[in-house]
């Protein structure tokens, strides 16, 4: 079969789709994580907590598929990244999985016993299920930007030479983790303002200005740090953008400020960090103005901007190696074969619009706010 798109184009398309999936996850499951993180702070009584939980109850399951699909798409389109990132960040991934496992059971089991200790236990399990993945994903991005200590041998076996979890928790990694936490907590607060009424919505609204300010300040700080304090990576010499996916066929150098080089070469890319700076504050203003729906859009755009900033800064790098830079994984040498990228693109073009359509249908069907009375009225049919 003749493949109608060339390899270079397919790789760029799949780099974009990787971004779409990560941003889709951060926007859609991000508000679930955010609501869970805010659970102990915005909701105090059992009815309030159930209000917050049921605001995400019917939709979080579908939202989490963005993560599952993201994992599957990385496996299919960027197998070298899948192999290197998940085995390298081993204990961090375990923490993410262990806390994510708490979510489905937490939502479903919490309401099954009318016992305060039982419910409080699951509240904190859900809290951990929101906080830990948000933090770890941010920390992971922070470490990607600094480079990760792995090398690749002639059989293409990945050898990770880091010392484990605590190495990931370096200052910049932690800062990136906090950006992620602040961003998603803010997003969760916007969602609570949109979907709930009464004390939960009021507390979420009170938190918003602080959450938005924290997000913007930490994000700006991380940006400065990248521009001044972190050596980026650059391709040294020519690279065949349609060559075989073999990361050992290139040379890579390190340069201070290399991660901001893309913005100098392509000024339009600056739109990403600008969105990242504007989204959260705009969302806070819009909630105050009583436009929670628009605020959600603004918050989502802010997330788009922040995630896209990380991706654009590194392009064409996906996962630089700090110990053997030539082993770094880039868009040009870490992808699947041309046929697989094409088949997956066709599948995405067919099914993604269908997914979007029925997701929109489900949100429409579930429109309206969750109130305390509604919660009290449905003791066993809701979470």
């Amino acid at each position: 079969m003749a493949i109608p798109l060339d390899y270079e184009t397919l790789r760029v398309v799949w780099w974009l789709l990787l971004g779409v999936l990560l941003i889709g996850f951060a926007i859609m499951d991000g508000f679930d994580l955010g609501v869970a993180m805010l659970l102990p702070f915005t909701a105090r009584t059992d009815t309030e907590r159930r209000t917050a939980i049921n605001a995400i109850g019917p939709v979080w399951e579908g939202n989490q598929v963005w993560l599952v699909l993201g994992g599957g798409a990385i496996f299919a389109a960027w197998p070298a990244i899948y192999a290197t990132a998940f085995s390298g960040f081993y204990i961090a991934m375990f923490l993410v999985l262990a806390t994510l496992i708490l979510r489905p059971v937490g939502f479903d089991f919490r309401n099954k016993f009318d016992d305060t200790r039982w419910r409080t236990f699951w509240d904190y399990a859900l809290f951990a299920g929101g906080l830990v993945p948000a933090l770890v994903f941010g920390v992971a991005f922070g470490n990607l930007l600094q480079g990760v200590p792995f090398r690749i041998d002639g059989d293409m076996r990945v050898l990770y030479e880091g010392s484990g979890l605590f190495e990931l928790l370096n200052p910049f990694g932690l800062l990136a983790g906090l950006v992620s936490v602040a961003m998603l907590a803010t997003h969760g607060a916007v969602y609570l303002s949109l979907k709930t009424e009464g004390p939960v919505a009021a507390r979420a609204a009170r938190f918003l200005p602080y959450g938005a300010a924290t997000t913007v300040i930490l994000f700006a700080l991380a940006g400065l740090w990248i521009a001044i304090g972190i050596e980026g990576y650059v391709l040294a010499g020519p690279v065949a953008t349609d060559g075989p996916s073999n990361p050992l066929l290139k040379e890579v150098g390190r340069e201070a400020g290399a991660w901001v080089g893309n913005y100098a070469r392509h000024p339009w890319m600056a739109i990403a960090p600008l969105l990242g700076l504007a989204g959260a504050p705009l969302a806070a203003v819009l909630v105050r103005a009583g436009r929670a729906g628009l605020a959600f859009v603004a918050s989502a755009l802010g997330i788009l901007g922040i995630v896209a900033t990380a991706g654009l800064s590194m392009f064409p790098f996906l996962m630089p190696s700090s110990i053997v830079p030539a082993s770094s994984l880039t868009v040009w040498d870490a992808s699947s074969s041309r046929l697989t990228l094409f088949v997956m693109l066709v599948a995405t073009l067919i099914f993604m619009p269908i997914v979007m359509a029925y997701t929109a249908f489900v949100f429409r069907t579930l429109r309206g706010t969750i109130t305390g009375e509604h919660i009290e009225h449905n003791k066993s049919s809701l979470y």
Partner: protein
Amino acid sequence: MMDLDPTGLARLQFAATALYHFLFVPLTLGLSFLLAIMESVYVMTGRRIWRDMTQFWGKLFAINFAMGVATGITMEFQFGTNWAYYSHYVGDVFGAPLAIEGLMAFFLESTFVGLFFFGWDRMSRVGHLVVTWLVAIGSNLSALWILIANGWMQNPVGSVFNSDTMRMELTSFWDLIFNPVAQSKFVHTVSAGYVTGCMFVIAISSWYLLRGRHIALARRSFTVAAAFGLASALSVVVLGDESGYVVTQHQKMKLAALEAMWRTEPAPAGFTLFAIPDTQARENHLEVKVPWALGLIATRSLSTVLPGIDDLVDEAKQQIRSGLIAYDALERLKLSRSDEAARASLGAHAVDLGHALLLKRYVEDPRSADDALIAKAAGDTVPDVLTMFWAFRIMVGLGFFFIAFFAFAFWLASIRDFGRHWFLKLAVWVWWTPWLAAELGWIVAEYGRQPWAIAGILPTFLASSSLSVAQVLFSLTGFVLFYSTLLVVDIVLMRRYILMGPAAALGGAGHSAARPAPAAE
């Protein structure tokens, strides 16, 4: 059996997490269709009892579904964490069905499952029914794509080794999808799920009937599950995935191992009913055989010869020798990518490259292996015959039991006789049998795949990540403790809701303010 090295621990972790996951998946597959059938009757007849049935079994479905999702997340990322070389080596082929599963199936199932639980008073009857069917279809499509991925591990079609990237790459997506092994596994596995769901419903309904509780709901549920269960039990046995075992050399080895057939027999081979396989002497003790039966079951023919283990090991030796030529060519290509002679040589022998890799267990450079080592590596291609033989027999025995069980249940339901206490008690006692059969089925299929991660392509011991024992031990212990705790909670909650019964479980649900109590008790 398994060593406590990182690979052995990673295998234990995969087995443990897969077996846990597979406690919940079959019930999701089966119950989702039963819910869709029950709600269809509700929409067609308008009778409230069928809605109560859907909602009550839906409560139990929800508890199970949560566990299925919780244990499934780990499976999705485990290839990357514990099996990095596998992920690199076959991600180009294996990743695609997994990603499409998310896109086409898991999204569908998960997006609509929320509406199934919480959309009752927000949608029309027909609208909600459509949602329930979409959940059932989504979960079954999910199984389809997972088994396409798994079928490729058993029978790696539609792909070729690329020396430039040092991995397997896709050559035909259609071959991947229409892999005969994948197709037969899919039918077999979802049917097993339906049997599990039906047994679950019949066992609980029988318990209610014995206690004289919730009679109306129990009788109707019993009837639906008996009918669907009979069809599924027939399907799971008749369309058993043994039919897929004849297509490749490796699958033939699995077949020979689970029959403990050491030597090739003239066609059609006999089916061994009982034996104690002796892996040292390579023969069976106390053998009881049914003439012709195996040949007929496995090949559906009187003349096709099924090779025995010893002949297959000899074949493996030949493949190792051929694979060594490929391995040598590959090493030369690593030195010079423009060595066309090496490239041609690799192309001619690439299908056997995996067999040469079997030697890496014993020597760093397979080319240095002598005849004795080659014989040893060829011997490694034989799975654990004793385990395979008995796991398969118990599974098949259970399969025939399910046919008899559901046939009798169906007959009872047809004559509306719900008072046979001995049968109701039997149903309550044997509720767990489909789970045993399903777990044994996993063992036959996947433990029987050893020593390969990808049959004939990539040995398991090469497929793992470069991790320390401490790391894998930590995550293994963590997951096992975690899952075991959750399993206990799951069982406690299931029991609680079954004991409560539909009235209390749905009680106070107040979907509408003046909701009448569930129909006639």
